[in-house]
């Protein structure tokens, strides 16, 4: 746990994304997969399924500190994060116990908690609050409640893990699609160096517009040019290879999850087709605004309502 706490401290103490990626790389290189799989899970903001009720923990904490519930609530709302508030409320300690490794703690302590009778569960929590440093407690609380918020975007994770695995970012982006699973198996699969499976999804360099350098009056070779409207959407590539469909943004992020209706269209394409075009929201014969399109970006789950309000069509 100490190494992960160290990582959190490093991430928290820099505003530079470059430095953050470096911190992540060092972490993933240094710790065994038994810890790293959980580290990755937490850093991406997931909460561990401990099946221990939030209120139960809060009540146990008030009992431990002898603090009335209203004061705990007031403090938590002042801090804006109950995991942090609980660590701060316990307060700094001169001497603290060395915690076990992250994987060991989660698998042999945290996940076993739910099997204990309530009073023993409480005893266990009290023991942790009594033993550990503020920063370790912060982490333990975050295991329960999730939402680590360390300024690490998926993109930074992709960069770091791609570096650790010594593969390209697009492939890592593919592998990180879907839900994180906190197992050694999942983590080791992420880091496999063989990328033949993913290669089929790889996009071509994007067909992007760039400004014309000379003023229009100097053009003499008009006939060699073709003028196309510059749509205000996002550039994307739709790929169908070996029966699978992939949608890439120009930032080389796989955006399959955000645009299910485009994937449906992709399925109808003949195998080996790649379409480079502008992704546009289109409804009742009219192109909607970029703001509309934005409601569809960076979303994991697209609802039926989203599909009705902002349908997408690829415009080439």
């Amino acid at each position, binding site marked *: 746990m100490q190494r992960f706490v160290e990582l959190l401290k490093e991430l*928290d*103490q820099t505003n530079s994304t470059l430095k953050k990626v470096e911190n992540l790389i060092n972490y993933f290189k240094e710790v065994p997969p038994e810890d790293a799989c959980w580290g990755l899970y937490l850093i991406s903001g997931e909460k561990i399924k401990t099946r221990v009720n939030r209120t139960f923990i809060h009540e146990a904490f008030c009992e431990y500190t002898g603090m009335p519930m209203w*004061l705990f609530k*007031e*403090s938590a709302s*002042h801090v804006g994060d109950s995991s*942090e508030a609980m660590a*701060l*409320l316990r307060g*700094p300690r001169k001497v603290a116990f060395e915690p076990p490794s992250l994987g060991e703690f989660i698998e042999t302590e945290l996940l076993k908690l739910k099997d204990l009778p309530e009073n023993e569960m409480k005893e266990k929590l009290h023991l942790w609050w009594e033993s550990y440093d503020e920063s370790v407690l912060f982490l333990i609380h975050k295991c329960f409640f999730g939402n680590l918020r360390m300024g690490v975007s998926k993109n930074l994770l992709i960069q770091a893990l791609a570096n650790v695995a010594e593969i390209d970012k697009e492939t890592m982006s593919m592998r990180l699609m879907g839900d994180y699973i906190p197992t050694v198996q999942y983590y080791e699969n992420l880091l496999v160096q063989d990328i033949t499976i993913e290669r089929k999804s790889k996009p071509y360099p994007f067909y992007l517009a760039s400004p014309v350098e000379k003023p229009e009056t100097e053009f003499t070779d008009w006939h060699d040019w073709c003028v196309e409207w510059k749509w205000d959407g996002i550039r994307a590539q739709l790929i169908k290879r070996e029966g699978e469909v992939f949608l890439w943004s120009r930032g080389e992020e796989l955006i399959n999850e955000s645009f299910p209706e485009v994937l449906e269209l992709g399925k109808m394409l003949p195998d080996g087709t790649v379409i480079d075009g502008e992704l546009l929201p289109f409804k009742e014969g009219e192109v909607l605004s970029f703001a509309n399109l934005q409601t569809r970006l960076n979303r994991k789950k697209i609802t039926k309502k989203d599909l009705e309000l902002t349908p997408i069509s690829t415009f080439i």
Partner: protein
Amino acid sequence: MELLQLSSKGLYCPLGDFYIDPWEEVKTAVITHGHGDHAHWGMEQYISVKDCAPILQKRLIELKLTTYDYGEVFKLGEVQVSFHPAGHILGSSQARLEYQGEVWVFTGDFKRNEDPTCPAFEVVPCDVFISEATFSLPVYRWPNFQNEIQEIYDWWIKNEREGFNSVVCCYALGKAQRIIAGLRSLTKEPIWVHGTIDEVNQAYAKAGYTWPDIHKVPLEGKEKFKGALILCPPSAMGSTWSKRLTPKKVAFASGWMRLRGNRRRKGYERGFVISDHADWPDLLRTVKETGCKTVLFTHGHTESIVRYLTEEGKVVARDLKLPFEVEGET
């Protein structure tokens, strides 16, 4: 009769016809310490503890000032008044008022943690205790002062190795000197300060507090800094003055830095939890140790501490809203 009453100009003592830390012009002002929200300009006469004089004289020009030692009793009208160390900054005091055996104490700002730049807080037994409550929520628990100083030092060394200057933003009066004194127990390396801090240092020197090898970063000038430690008020960041310190890492030293969100919202890379105010445990401890029957709180989250003490039921606790800004801790 109440020894102190809240009026539109400040905390007023009718039996002695004087005010404590008034914010509007009055005849007689008893001043607890030199921070801008407690020592205002324009009073006919000022009364303070001796060590406060160089600071008041620096801040307020043409001032008619009478000073006393800590513990020295003097009379204002019918009331016996004395100053007692508050441990907040140099020259900070609690004001003790006594009339016909009844004792009231006003703390001004105070802390109980270690501070090499002023005498330690003294518990003054009283009937009515008027306490500041700037950090009156239980999340505010201060780490050990020397540990935080060590953290600053380690951060400085790390930045120096990576080719950065280390800039610590802190309040110019009190906090800066406390940090300097703390660092001087760890290192002889030169420390650089902003002009505002340099001026305060001169006032501290008059009271006998000096440190070797502290240098001013002048407003204009071309010297380049590399791997240096620089202290400045937060307002100096973003000015042309601060551009000369690039490449730099910037930290903030304040009790508010206890909360991660506070630091991140302000964009500081590091926060050092060093406060010149009492934390929650010390507020409660102090109320208890004074043996007071009634406690009134000013500044901060007074509602929480009032409710907490009321539920505990050992003292009568109330709110006393003074229009002080929380300037001492920005």
